[in-house]
């Protein structure tokens, strides 16, 4: 039987309704950034640690943190699309198919076609960026090779990183004019690309290109193409920072023009203390759906599952509910990263009790919105900035939400062995004694039995605070400290309930001039990013582009001794792991099989 009218790829481009499906197909490859199993930034760095083996999920990325990355079947393989990774080269092929064929659609108005083309061009750029950030040099997929290509034609070569960056910028520049400033049809289109999203991502890509890993990286001098050209230009190029600064500034202007602004919580039905409101400002800048700060939210990768891995059992009457897992356990390094109440690093604040930080103190009236009054906990948890209390939970800390709306009567965590938030069987606990409050929307409710209610939010791939800090970083690299840098830094600090940068450092710092030098301010901006964007999947990539991963990822991962029932035993820092990180770990290995199939691919150094 020989059939006619069987669907072929041409059917995708005859009518608008079908072509729209293909547009969505191009979007569908976006990495699942809110997925613990798919985003290495959650599992492969030093922000979180996990007990092992994990039950219920098996994030491949955690094997990378534990030094098990390999070439036979690499974890988080976004090159071939396996072990937790999306097949990004397939994504690029589909983008190209779309771009080649979209003109054939007869009932597609030109303005809409232009917008669709712009979206797909941006996605194509973004997929290239993902691969670049993971693998370094990659083959540029400008056009599709025909299926009937010869064996030699299909053997593409990796292009030096500067060429890849250049191609990415070309694509974004082509895309931006045809993207909308903001989404008009919010009910149907929130999550589609806009100019602010594209420009902000361009800023991030430009800052990445200017950062030490990609700009003047001496370490890869001998990593060259077959012709001997280095994949990474070993000469530092200041112009990359200049350009990153300009691009970031432009992105800020367009974002503000589109109405984006830093998030401030408001709910007139609740009568809350200022402390609680500050915490809500911080938490909801991430966890409130489509808040004004979100420049690009991924409606295809939402937080529902992630919130279950972050949330803990907090109601003593509902401890059998296994929907909440408390897997995402911030490391002690993160607990020590947050500032003091004076907005300074712990080591810089002359008024903070650094030497006594592992003592055990009792919660007092002054901290009652942060930790349970009368409850004994580590001195490390006292006199810290609101972002510490808003982003992390710990034994004794207040957790606003879960049905209790009066901040005078809230839940608090009890996490020592045998207590409500401790282990369930051999699993379902935080291995460090810290919990990720920031990622959990405050409307979360653990119900009786195995039911739970969660307010879903799209994963914020890019938000305004991130963009401000990118601009500050780039501007500092170009010109050194300036009032404009302080201005953007202070916008972020103000929302976090802190005094200005200048006030904090002038009045409380040991090295009060640090912020006035380029190098000093660079460190401050780096730490500010680490705090403001904590647990949002940024630190992992930041540490790499700053080439700091080789330092931090060789340091011990610590947490509290969570299997202790008594306070004294519990509050002893315990070593969980001694990770190792060498030069090769900055980039993913290409799978051995890919190299065998295409001998023109050159493996990354060290693999």
């Amino acid at each position, binding site marked *: 039987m020989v059939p006619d009218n069987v669907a072929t790829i041409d059917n995708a481009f005859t009518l608008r309704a079908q072509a729209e499906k293909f547009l969505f197909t191009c979007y569908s490859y976006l990495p699942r950034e809110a997925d613990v199993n798919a985003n290495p930034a959650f599992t492969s760095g030093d922000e979180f640690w996990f007990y092992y083996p994990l039950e219920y999920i098996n994030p491949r990325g955690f094997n990378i943190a534990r030094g*098990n990355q390999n070439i036979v079947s690499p974890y988080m393989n976004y090159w071939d699309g396996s072990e937790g990774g999306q097949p990004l080269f397939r994504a690029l092929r589909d983008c190209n198919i779309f771009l080649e064929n979209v003109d054939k659609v007869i009932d597609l108005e030109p303005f809409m076609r232009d917008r669709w083309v712009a979206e797909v061009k941006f996605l194509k750029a973004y997929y290239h960026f993902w691969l670049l950030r993971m693998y370094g040099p990659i083959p540029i997929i400008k056009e599709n090779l025909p299926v009937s290509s010869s064996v030699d034609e*299909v053997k593409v070569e990796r292009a030096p990183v500067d060429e890849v960056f250049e191609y990415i910028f070309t694509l974004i520049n082509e895309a931006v004019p045809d993207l909308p400033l903001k989404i008009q049809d919010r009910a*149907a289109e929130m999550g589609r690309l806009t100019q602010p999203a594209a420009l902000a991502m361009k800023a991030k890509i430009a800052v990445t290109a200017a950062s030490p890993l990609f700009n003047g990286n001496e370490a890869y001098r001998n990593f060259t193409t077959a012709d001997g050209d280095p994949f990474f230009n070993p000469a530092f190029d200041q112009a990359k920072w200049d350009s990153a600064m300009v691009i970031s500034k432009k992105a800020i202007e367009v974002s503000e023009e589109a109405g984006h602004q830093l998030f401030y919580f408001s709910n007139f039905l609740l009568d809350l203390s200022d402390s609680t409101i500050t915490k809500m400002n911080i938490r909801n800048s991430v966890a409130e759906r489509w808040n004004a700060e979100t420049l690009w939210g991924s409606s295809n990768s939402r937080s529902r599952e992630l919130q279950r891995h972050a949330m803990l059992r907090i109601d003593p009457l509902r401890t059998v509910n296994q929907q909440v897992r408390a897997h995402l356990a911030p490391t002690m390094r993160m607990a020590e990263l947050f500032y003091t109440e004076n907005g300074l690093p712990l080591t810089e604040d002359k008024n903070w009790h650094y030497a006594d930080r592992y003592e055990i103190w009792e919660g007092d009236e002054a901290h009652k919105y942060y930790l349970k009054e009368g409850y004994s906990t580590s001195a490390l948890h006292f006199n810290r900035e609101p972002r510490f209390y808003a982003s992390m939970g710990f034994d004794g800390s207040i957790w606003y939400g879960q049905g209790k709306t009066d901040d005078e009567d809230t839940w608090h965590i009890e996490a020592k062995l045998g207590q409500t938030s401790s282990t369930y069987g051999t699993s379902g606990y935080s291995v460090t004694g810290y919990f990720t409050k920031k990622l959990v929307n405050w409307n979360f409710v653990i119900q009786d039995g195995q039911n739970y209610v969660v307010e879903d939010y799209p994963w914020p791939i890019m938000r305004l605070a991130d963009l401000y800090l990118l601009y500050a970083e780039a501007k500092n690299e170009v010109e050194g400290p300036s009032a404009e840098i302080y201005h953007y830094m202070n916008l972020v600090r103000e929302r976090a309930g802190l005094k200005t940068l200048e006030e904090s450092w002038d009045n409380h710092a040991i090295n009060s001039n640090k912020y006035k030098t380029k190098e000093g301010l660079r460190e401050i901006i780096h730490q500010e990013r680490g705090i403001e964007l904590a647990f949002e999947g940024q630190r992992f990539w930041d540490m790499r582009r700053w080439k700091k991963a080789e330092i931090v990822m060789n340091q011990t991962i610590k947490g509290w001794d969570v299997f202790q029932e008594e306070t004294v035993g519990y509050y002893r820092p315990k070593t969980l792991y001694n990770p190792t990180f060498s030069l090769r770990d900055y980039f993913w290995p290409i799978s051995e099989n890919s190299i065998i199939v295409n001998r023109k691919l050159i493996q990354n150094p060290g693999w």
Partner: protein
Amino acid sequence: MLFGASIPIMAQQRLITGTVYSQDDGTTIPGANLVLKENNNIGAVSDIDGNYSISVPNDAGALVVSFIGYKTKVVPINGQSNIDIRLEADLQQLEEVEVVAFGTQKKSSMVSSIETINPAELKVPSSNLTTALAGRLSGVIAYQRSGEPGADNTNFFIRGVTTFGYKKDPLILIDGIELTATDLARLQPDDIASFSILKDATSTSMYGARGANGVILVTTKSGNEGPAKVSIRLESSTSMPTQNIDLADPITYMLQHNEAALTRNPLAILPYAQSKVDNTIAGTNPYFYPAVDWQKMLIKDHTTNRRMNFNVSGGGKVARYYVAGTYNQDNGILKVDRRNNFNNNINLKSYLLRSNVNIDLSPSTEAVVRLHGSFDDYIGPIDGGTGMFNKVIRANPVLFPAYFPTNENTAAIQHILFGNAQTNDGNLFLNPYADMVKGYKEYSNSLMLAQFELNQDFSFLVPGLKARGKLMTQRRSGYDVSRFYNPHFYAASTYDKFEDNYSLVLLNEGSATEYLNYNEGETDVEIVTYMEAAVNYNKTIDEAHEISGMLVYLRRNLLEANAGSLQQSLPFRNEGLSGRFTYGYKQKYLLETNFGYNGSERFHKSQRFGFFPSVGLGWVVSNESFWEPMRRSITNLKLRGTYGLVGNDAIGSASDRFFYLSEVNMNDGGRGATFGQDFGYNRSGISVSRYDNDEITWEIDKQLSLGLEFDLFDEFQIIAEYFTRNRSNILMSRASIPTTMGLSSTIRANVGEAKSSGVDMSVDYNKYFNNNSWVQGRANLTYATSQFTVYEEPEYDLWYLSRVGNSLSQQYGLIAERLFVDDEETYNSPTQNFGERPRGGDIKYRDVNGDGQITNLDVVPVGHPTDPEIIYGLGLSAGHNGFDFSLFFQGSGRSSFWIDPEATAPFIQRETSTGNSQAGLLQAYADSHWSEENQDVYALWPRLGTEIVENNVQRSTWFMRDGSFVRLKSLEFGYSFKDSLIKKAHLNRARIYFSGTNLFTLSKFKLWDPEMGSNGLGYPVQRVLNLGIQLGF
């Protein structure tokens, strides 16, 4: 009835009476012709019961007894008045005609390689005919991996496997109709008239695109003219596993589970607290501290099966009939729980009804009507027998009891109080007992076949010209449905040591039911229509030149009702024209050519039709005059050879309907996206699951077969054959396409080439002694090897990675040297790139390419192929005075298999549809594994762990085992009752017999039946002890 000849009554006449029997099987022969040697005017014919009565003169010397198909016998009278006569079958005459593609051929003039077996040899105490194939037919590679009723088909391949498409097994034709292996399995040997295997190009090329993997041809019996003849066979058998899996006891399980957790992570929380271990050892309370032997709980030692088969045949001048019915009942070896009101042990009932009627419409026209129905009714556990066996070894023996007894607190509860526990995820565990008793699955499969055939002899126009037309339709349908309740699971809590009681907590209040739910499974409906038209012509010129020719046209149409996709739902069509021409000169020099010309819809227009010719030559040396002096010892000697092309269009996978069309999923949910304020705007995506390809075409098999036949003293019959097959155009995925191409499905092309070669031979021995004794022997051997000659693979720098030159089922693996002595050694050894860094007690592999890393580049061909290369059988039977005895050994050689390290890994928790399973511990692993106390670097199992250790489950020589074995496949002992005893019951035949299969096995492998290969945790192969009775009247 007595057919007495009318002769003049003479003085001194005497009456001789008696019965004529067949010497082979002891059946009586009606219609045998008896004449007096001295005067052939005096004669008689035996009646329906084989009895005769003849009046002869007193001085008569001897009777001459003859019947078609038997050797004529001269019986001296010697004054006796009662003489039973046994006629010996004339094999020359019986086997004169052999069934070949689309017809029959005289055996003496055949040049092609066809293996024929006496259907009686296929009688085994099993409801599955395919289990009898291994070792009984030369040229067949066969093995059985499971003993589950309804799923115990043997895998069989003719002359090995030379392809890697989805269809590797032969084409099965029953009465000329293409059917499945299961249909073959249900056939009754009693109903089979002939069973042949077509092995070479000349015998199969008429099947064109379908014949490349060989053909099994079966015809069923037709009636003969004569009064009704009834035959009944009843069997009852006991079936039990040849070998059971040996599991560690619950205490060992618990201790080693703790060991497994600690040895990998000293910080681990122990799975079982010390108090639990102590109390379980002490046997404190078996419900609070359970220790369950799930195997004993769920599985019986043996089961009984019944089989019944009858047939009636006969006919008159105009019509002849053969009607047969069969009823088989096979039970599983699962225990039935009396607490339920339904039986969920496997119970497979199969019924068959067959009616073959031949009608002479005119002296030259015959119509044949064949009706056949085959029906399977099954009741069994929801996940099948293999599923239950898997569950038994996937259940934790110490977490919960199978069920709790009712006490005064729970007396009012109607349902069974199944035990369970919560996993750390809050899920429940798998309770295999609850899974077994909670419900059952029913399935029914029906096959109805109606065939009409018209044979017209045109000899009145042109002598030797005949034509035939055949129409057939076949309807197959099946459904399955499960009915089950959701068990109530309880956990024991708050144990009171002094009162020795505990309270129960219901774990699944929301989902448990006391009433039945049901689940509809698949419903399959399949319709096949088939037509065939043929003409043939036979002529002998001058008694020296024998010529025959044949042309056949056929068309087959298959339609599936629930095919699952548009492309699958379109009718499957196959069309072909085939022909044969034979020429023989004085029965010495033989020539045969065949062709098949076939169309397959799977390919593009330009590739659609294929032409498959073949030629064969034969020389019957023993018919040469110069052979005369040798003819007494070597009675027959024939040399033959054939060469030809055969095709295979069953390439890729069955779902690749039209290779030249792309397959696009216009609504791929996996590639969709969601947008909108409340995530309300969703569209699915579009994906390509196959790219169109006009170039894809047939596989072509070039087959050469050389054969030698010779008969020694009319007692030994020896056939030896050598074959080679060169398969080209094998469809393969292009290996050279990197992932950077971004293709969403693989690109394929007809690039692969493979060849196979081998030998198959058989020796038959037949000897009849004068004192009613006979001996038969039969031995055969099949040796088939295969190798890739062209294999699509990347250009390897390392020669050993290439598959070229190795067998198609050659496995590749790492070379395991031993286990690591300690963690320290792992740091000083090449990096092993599989999952987590190995530790002491994990498997240490050899760095074959010396690059300091163990990767896929260190993988080398290991062991023998997984399909055995040698299958052999040796059978011996003998009879004397009503007693008969036979035994049959079967063996398999040159194969390897792998213990599946993932499936057998102890303690592993897995999610299943009915709760988390937790793998059991094989006794062999409990006894021999690397532990910190006993650092045995050659232990059977590496360091324990509670998770799959990727490093240890790589395919390697560590878990490789030799698959060869020899087994006593069957044994039979029978007795046929003397006529004098059974005559009163109006029987003409009664035989009782005892038989057994798989009685013992010799193999190096001890964990499970070696024939199951790596599938050892499934439903075991069965040993059967059988008692049967055969009656004829």
